[in-house]
């Protein structure tokens, strides 16, 4: 099928969907839809569809057609119930009757629901208890203005202690981490991921995993995956590789959950 024919077929399908939607949303007679013809059309076009958008359009047309068939079933079911009546006849009756007659008729078939509301001594007592304990609104809705603090001076060490500034720049920290990796690897060329990242505490492990991800991303190291053995190794480069940005990068998700850290720690202790 040429592109032009495909476009025409898609438009035809859109019109089918609009027609079926009008049955559901605007109460159009469901029997006005020629279901057999639409099914034959869908069957004819289905082998030509290739892309996911075309398949989705076909699926949508089938879905709305199914709802039309359901509406047809509901119509037949309604006709067979005792509530069926000719709408034009009923409308004509309604138009001819005056308001008083309509109201009188309705009240003979109307059985309103009886419902009572009543306060009791117990609920009053509870309400009074709640009232006595309730803090006044002036206190509940107090608007706190900004805190007034006297301006002063601070030191660089204080800012580092408060973790507002870092002692080293991030790059300095990363390079120090890379040196540590190269030292740990030694002549082996590589080290197991958990043996490098794992630490005595879980929060330190997370920090190391975070820095390791930057080592790999910035070309200081690479990962070697052995999926069958479920092992991941880190291999440091002797020099950071800048040409990595020209190559296609993939993401490798590695879970560093507390359960896995515990498992690694127990394994190390054994």
């Amino acid at each position, binding site marked *: 099928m040429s592109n032009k024919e495909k476009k025409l077929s898609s438009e035809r399908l859109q019109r089918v969907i609009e027609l079926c939607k009008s049955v559901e949303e605007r109460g159009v007679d469901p029997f006005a839809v020629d279901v057999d013809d639409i099914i034959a059309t869908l069957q004819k076009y289905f082998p030509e569809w290739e892309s996911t958008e075309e398949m989705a359009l076909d699926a949508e047309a089938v879905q709305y057609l199914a709802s039309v068939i359901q509406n047809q079933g509901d119509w037949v079911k309604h006709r067979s119930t005792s509530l069926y009546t000719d709408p034009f006849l*009923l409308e004509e009756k309604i138009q001819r009757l005056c308001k008083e*007659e309509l*109201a009188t*008729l309705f009240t003979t078939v*109307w*059985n*309103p*629901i009886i419902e*009572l*509301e009543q306060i009791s001594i117990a609920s009053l007592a509870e309400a009074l208890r709640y009232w006595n304990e309730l803090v006044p609104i002036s206190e509940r809705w107090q608007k706190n203005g900004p805190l007034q603090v006297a301006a002063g001076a601070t030191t660089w060490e204080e800012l580092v202690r408060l973790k507002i500034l870092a002692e080293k720049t991030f790059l300095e920290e990363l390079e120090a981490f890379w040196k540590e990796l190269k030292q740990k690897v030694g002549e082996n060329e590589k080290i197991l991921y958990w043996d490098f990242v794992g630490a005595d505490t879980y929060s330190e492990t997370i920090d190391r995993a975070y820095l390791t991800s930057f080592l790999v991303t910035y070309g200081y190291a690479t990962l070697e995956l052995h999926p069958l053995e479920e092992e991941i190794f880190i291999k440091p480069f002797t020099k950071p590789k800048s040409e990595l940005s020209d190559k296609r990068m993939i993401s490798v998700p590695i879970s560093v959950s507390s359960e896995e850290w515990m498992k690694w720690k127990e394994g190390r202790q054994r």
Partner: protein
Amino acid sequence: MDEMERGETKMTRKAYYARKIKRATQLLFYKRHMKPGVKGWELKNALGSDYPKILKVLDDHLEKLDLQVKTVFEGEEPAGKPTLEELNKARFFITLRGGLPSKDAKMMGWRIDDIAGLATAISYIISKKGKAPREEVEDLLRSKLPGWRVDINMNRYIRSGYLAEDENEQLYLDWRTRAEVDQKALVDLLLGTES
């Protein structure tokens, strides 16, 4: 001794049902939620799984006061005897058993225009197989009622639970109509009037 024991058992059963009926009365008459009435599962929790029997006894008592226990099922009404599961999902109300003189409706806060409008809307929706565009219903009401009153009343019918409106502005009959109005009787009465 056996007769005495039987007598005691009978008194205990009577006391048991009397207690349960009082509890059922409180649950059904007094408004507890946004909607009136009580769900079947709430009655089951309060009265036990034999609550349908208790409601039947209560219904017999209420007949003398021209009241009744009305059940509105979730979805369509079951064809035969409803199962306990269907009853648990249904909603139970106390309604008037007989009709209401139209002049008494005024005491309930309904003007004659309001009732006539409601009757017209419900009948029209029934004739359209339970679903009708709001615009069509409003046009029909405007033929006899002022436009501003039609707008107010339509919102009132929807808020009260007589009618429901979906996102496509199609009106349906809602829970209160199913609980309060004998739809078949209404249609028969309308068709039975002389043109």
